[in-house]
């Protein structure tokens, strides 16, 4: 089935709203920006063909306000809604309401969104589709014998975790069968003391995991391809700070293998649109499914740089009911790309730094891309996410890409607010980063020296 999409309402703000509007312009599709009262002066409002104020500053009353967004689509005759990321992008309810109102939601079907939003259901579905899952017991372990049998099955090291807990209490890493019984008892005692619940469970422990994700494109005709991986290991409190493509840890063979797993899973669940499989990768190149994101990712540009794909265009083309448009053989990974998320934050303490941007130098030249809704004089409002720009570079090799990012960070002068530019400069200079030998513990181990 093919549908015409002539006008898209962009149900988002900031850089991703601009990003979507850029591609719509390139496709000759009209755009409607929606905005809160705090975002009247935003770039997405200025570059869209139409703009509708949908509520006051707080997200709950504007960017999460489903009736206001649907009404805005209706009064402007938009025939599709692009949700971007965050806000309503993974709301099955919103996708369903769009469907009911005869507005094409640019993303997968509501039932698929709902399934992937439920961790237990997603894990079950992915296991059935042959996707590897981190071995372990979601059910509580009662006895030392049970623990030992399970641990031997999944292999050491394992981690004992409090079912009710968090924050390290009732948590024990066990590296051999000998240590298991005593650690189980200690963990149960600790868990009981801390959470009044002695239940613990056991899972494979990955010492120095990497966070690797696979970008897929799937159309409504069950054509599915992948665009390779993104390296997203460098995080702080589960927030990604910078991303790369390809990953310095992934060989061609491993890429093909992870990609094939993701493609097969998409076909089995009837996925359509762009999507991302997030995997944990251990030091032995074993990978384990964590979750699937059923939307565009913040870090999609690094994939665009190395494949020349336009993932927003892909999403829109797929939403019209057309074929995805390339075969796996046509996907070539060229060079290396890095993205730094520039946040309006103190680079050491990570406290938000909203306010007026008094100077903003946009770095140019070879292999530099900036996705932003900011401009000189723009006021970063305190109500939303602190990311104000994405600085992306592309070069022939990872080493050249790091050098280019260092140059671009130096040229990206932002005054009036604090940003994470100095943090990224220090990460670029870090030896472990440069060698590519890092895990999700990178930021814990990283010393920010001023």
């Amino acid at each position, binding site marked *: 089935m093919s549908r015409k999409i002539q006008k898209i309402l962009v149900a988002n703000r900031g850089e991703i709203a601009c990003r979507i509007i850029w591609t719509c312009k390139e496709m000759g599709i009209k755009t409607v920006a929606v905005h809160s009262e705090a975002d009247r002066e935003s770039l997405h409002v200025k570059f869209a063909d139409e703009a*509708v104020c949908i509520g006051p500053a707080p997200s709950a009353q504007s960017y999460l306000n489903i009736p206001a967004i649907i009404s805005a689509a209706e009064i*402007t005759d938009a025939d599709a809604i692009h949700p971007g990321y965050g806000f309503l992008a993974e709301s099955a309810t919103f996708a369903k309401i769009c469907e009911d109102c005869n507005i094409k939601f640019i993303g997968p079907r509501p039932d698929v969104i709902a399934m992937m939003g439920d961790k237990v259901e997603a894990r079950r579905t992915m296991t059935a589709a042959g996707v590897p899952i981190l071995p372990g017991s979601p059910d509580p372990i009662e006895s030392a014998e049970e623990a030992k049998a399970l641990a031997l099955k999944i292999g050491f090291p394992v981690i004992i975790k409090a079912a009710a807990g968090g924050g390290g209490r009732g948590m024990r890493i066990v590296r051999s069968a000998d240590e298991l019984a005593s650690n189980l008892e200690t963990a149960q005692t600790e868990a009981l003391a801390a959470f009044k619940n002695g239940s613990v469970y056991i899972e494979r422990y990955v010492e120095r995991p990497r966070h690797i994700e696979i970008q897929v494109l799937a159309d409504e005709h069950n054509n599915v391809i992948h665009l390779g991986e993104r390296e997203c290991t460098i995080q702080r409190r589960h927030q990604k700070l910078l991303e790369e493509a390809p990953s310095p840890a992934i060989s061609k063979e491993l890429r093909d293998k992870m990609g094939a797993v993701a493609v097969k899973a998409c076909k089995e669940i009837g996925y359509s649109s762009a999507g991302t499989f997030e995997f944990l990768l251990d030091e032995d190149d074993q990978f384990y499914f964590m979750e699937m994101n059923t939307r565009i990712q913040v870090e999609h540009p690094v994939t665009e740089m190395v494949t020349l794909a336009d993932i927003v265009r892909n999403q829109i083309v797929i939403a019209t009911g057309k074929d995805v448009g390339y075969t796996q053989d046509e996907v070539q990974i060229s060079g290396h790309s890095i993205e730094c998320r520039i946040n309006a934050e103190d680079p050491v303490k990570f406290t938000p730094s909203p306010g007026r941007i008094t100077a903003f130098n946009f770095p140019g030249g070879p292999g530099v891309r900036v996705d932003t809704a900011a401009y000189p004089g723009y*006021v970063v409002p305190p109500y939303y996410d602190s990311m104000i720009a994405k600085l992306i570079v592309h070069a022939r090799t990872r080493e050249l890409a790091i050098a280019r990012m260092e140059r671009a960070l130096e040229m990206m002068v932002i005054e009036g607010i604090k940003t994470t530019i100095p943090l990224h400069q220090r990460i670029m200079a870090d030896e472990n980063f440069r060698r590519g030998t890092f895990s999700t513990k990178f930021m814990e181990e990283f010393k920010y020296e001023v």
Partner: protein
Amino acid sequence: MAAEGRSFDMDELQSLAALVNEHGFTDFEFENENIRVKMSKAATVVAAPPMIAAPAAPVQAAAAKPAAASAPEVPVDDDADLHKITSPIVGTFYRAPGPDKPPYVSEGAAVSAETVVCIVEAMKLMNEIQAETSGTIVKIYVQDGQPVEYGQPLFGVKG
């Protein structure tokens, strides 16, 4: 926290004011668990306008929201003295409960807080909008059947 025996800390406010001045902000808002502060200033010279093109094509809903889509300007409000009844939701404005019915209110009508002044249709629901003020309707800003956005003035009321 305010210093003992005072309702606010003057030093804190002075340093905030100094910060605002130093950075040349024209609007400044700050809120934490203890205080909420807002400071505004008229800019003496308008800085170079944000380097933006006005929307390329006139917008369909343009008539409904002249200020929203155009370049930042200080709009001249001829009705600055009037109280505005604004739309609390996005939707389509109707002056009457049905096509053959008389309008809820017309110019010259006296309204009280509970008076229904119009309907804004959103997602097939007819939402009755109350005046939430009392006075006399002196202006109607929106045509029957026209789309309206959040916060858009619908009626001007003289108290």
